[in-house]
């Protein structure tokens, strides 16, 4: 039996539709991450599962039971909020114990469960403090503790780490990962941070405009994005997207001319293309090669003349941003050090097998071949 099932779930505020016909099945013990830009509906969808937002259409099942119209507390879920949402007038112990008290759990049982949660989250020395006396990371741990003691069927996380600073975020991310490993409970996690999504998720649900764009394991979304949205959203730095046009067609193959300096042509495996089609080609930054000024172009590569606009050196990696006459600057990832400088004239090498092709509607036609 699935842990969470969404059947044709939709939500609208008056005439404005924010979630449209979402179908999703989440298995027991799975860690599912909803990603999307702000306004994509990811938080709304989570809050609908929690019961904090009403459902306009469709139904939600948790552990096989239809909970579409149930109160949040009757759904067997626990939620961790971005703002921590601790009760300012209660100390840490009472914050964690509050839902057990409401559920009329016995005093000894409450004490046992609170202490157990405090142990798992290393909160023991802080139980007597008030939330105002805690740091951001400690507050978030208390919020998680409050969720743990309920023994929920599903944990819901609404951007739990966005209010933390960078180093703490990494630490808490590992802690959430450990928690999932130890408890084995189903978790649904909303974030706009794709590093969190890639590292935590068993499966990622990419959302845009209230619709699911793609569902799958992180690396599958990275390697084979379904459409332009997922291609642009997953991966950092983002995939390079270039406009192109089909100029010749043979069986199974098409020659695409890029809108770029020197209008280079690529021969791509495109059985469904017709001459004149406008396409978008996408190449990951690590798949592009920089060819120095006088070197010959390696076989199988198409060269694109470009000028270096800026260079970012991170020590282990260098990012080069190049103007190749495409609508946006091309980003190229070079491992280690590079002696490129802004203003240098170079050539960018593209291999046909590394190119993702999207049609005018944004849907994928061909994905890059994995190496």
């Amino acid at each position, binding site marked *: 039996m699935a842990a969470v099932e969404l059947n044709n779930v939709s939500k609208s505020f008056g005439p404005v539709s924010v979630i449209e016909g979402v179908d999703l099945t989440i298995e027991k013990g799975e860690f599912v991450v909803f990603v999307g830009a702000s306004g994509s509906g990811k938080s709304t969808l989570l*809050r609908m599962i*929690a*019961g*904090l937002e009403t459902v306009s259409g469709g139904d939600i099942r948790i552990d096989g039971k239809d909970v579409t119209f149930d*109160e*949040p*507390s009757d759904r067997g*879920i*626990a*939620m961790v*909020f*971005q*703002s*921590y*949402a*601790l*009760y*300012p*007038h209660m100390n840490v112990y009472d914050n964690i114990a*509050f*839902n057990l008290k*409401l*559920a009329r759990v016995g005093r000894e049982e409450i004490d046992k469960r609170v202490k157990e949660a405090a142990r798992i989250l290393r909160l023991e020395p802080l139980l007597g403090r008030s939330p105002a006396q805690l740091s951001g990371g400690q507050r978030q741990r208390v*919020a998680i503790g*409050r969720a743990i003691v309920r023994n929920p069927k599903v944990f819901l996380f609404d951007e739990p780490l966005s209010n933390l600073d960078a180093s703490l975020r990494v630490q808490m991310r590992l802690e959430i990962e450990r928690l999932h490993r130890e408890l084995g409970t189903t978790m649904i996690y909303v974030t706009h941070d794709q590093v969190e999504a890639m590292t935590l998720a068993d499966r990622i649900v990419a959302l845009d405009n209230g619709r699911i764009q793609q569902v799958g394991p992180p690396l599958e979304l990275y390697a084979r994005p379904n459409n332009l949205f997922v291609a642009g959203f997953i991966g950092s730095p983002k995939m390079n997207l270039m406009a192109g046009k089909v100029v010749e067609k043979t069986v199974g193959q098409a020659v695409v001319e890029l809108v770029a300096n020197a209008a280079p042509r690529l021969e791509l495996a495109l059985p469904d293309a017709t001459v004149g089609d406008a396409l978008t080609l996408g190449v990951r930054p690590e798949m592009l090669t920089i060819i120095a000024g006088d070197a010959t172009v390696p076989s199988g590569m198409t060269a694109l003349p470009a000028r270096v606009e800026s260079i970012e050196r991170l020590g282990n990696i260098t990012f080069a941003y190049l103007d190749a006459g495409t609508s946006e600057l091309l980003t190229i990832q070079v491992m280690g050090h590079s002696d490129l400088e802004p203003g240098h004239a170079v050539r960018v090498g593209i291999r046909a097998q590394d190119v993702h092709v999207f049609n005018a509607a944004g849907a994928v036609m061909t994905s890059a071949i994995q190496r």
Partner: protein
Amino acid sequence: MSTRTAPMRLNLGRFVVYATLAFAVCFYGIPLLWLFVAGTRSEASLLSDPPFALGTWEAFTRTWNNLTSYNNFQIVSWATNSLIYSIGGVLLSLAASIPGGYALALSEFPGRKLILLLTLIAMITPSTAVVLPIFLEMNLLGLSNTYAGMILASGFFPFGVYLTYVYFSTSLPKGVMDSARVDGCNRFQLFTRIALPLARPIIALVAFFSFLAIWSNYFLAFVLLSDDKLYNLPVGLTALVSGSGALSNLPSNDVPIKKPEVVLAAILVVLPVLLIFMAAQRFVRSGMLSGAEKG
């Protein structure tokens, strides 16, 4: 010392600010100061000595005894009445304002906007303008000239509803309420276990303002109460002054209420408000500021 510290200079702007403040302190403070000093002086001293001359302890105790024992300790029962009306009215206005403001701020129901608008209208209507209708209403209910009627009328405090509404709609973190719902609070528990404990500053603020309004309310008590046993302090004070002729220039009578006694009675009216303000000051300020920042 750093040489970059700006020297304290009396520029024009600063001068204007201080001058205005000094004027306000004198203008409003001097009469109050005089009132407290005058309470210690005898009638003769009030007429002949300089305005701020201090009186004597004997003069003060004599005045105090004259005032309190007059007419079978009438002023004591008036003060008690004032206290009963104020406490009753404050409790009633809190019982209405806090849940009322909470409901207006946190729930969606048909007619919510209309109720808010009516609250605003009721708030800006001068309270004296509704005294007559209230009197007629109380008459109809047979409650005029009773403690219950006076408390009921005093508890009408739309400003408190509005203050609470503003507080709850700006200062109550939404995430905390959501979290409490997930934790299993029903609507009633959301109010009693979460909102109410977080509303302490606004409860203090509403209580303070409504106390102030009820304690010093003259006109409502004047219209509603005809039995002098039920008078509150402001009405009693007027009755005392006019009944004794203390402030008129008529030939002296044998009523022991003279100018010093009247001054002392006035202090009795002012003092509780001052004391309560000083005690509640911090609460009142934090209550007024709390809407300005996120909790």
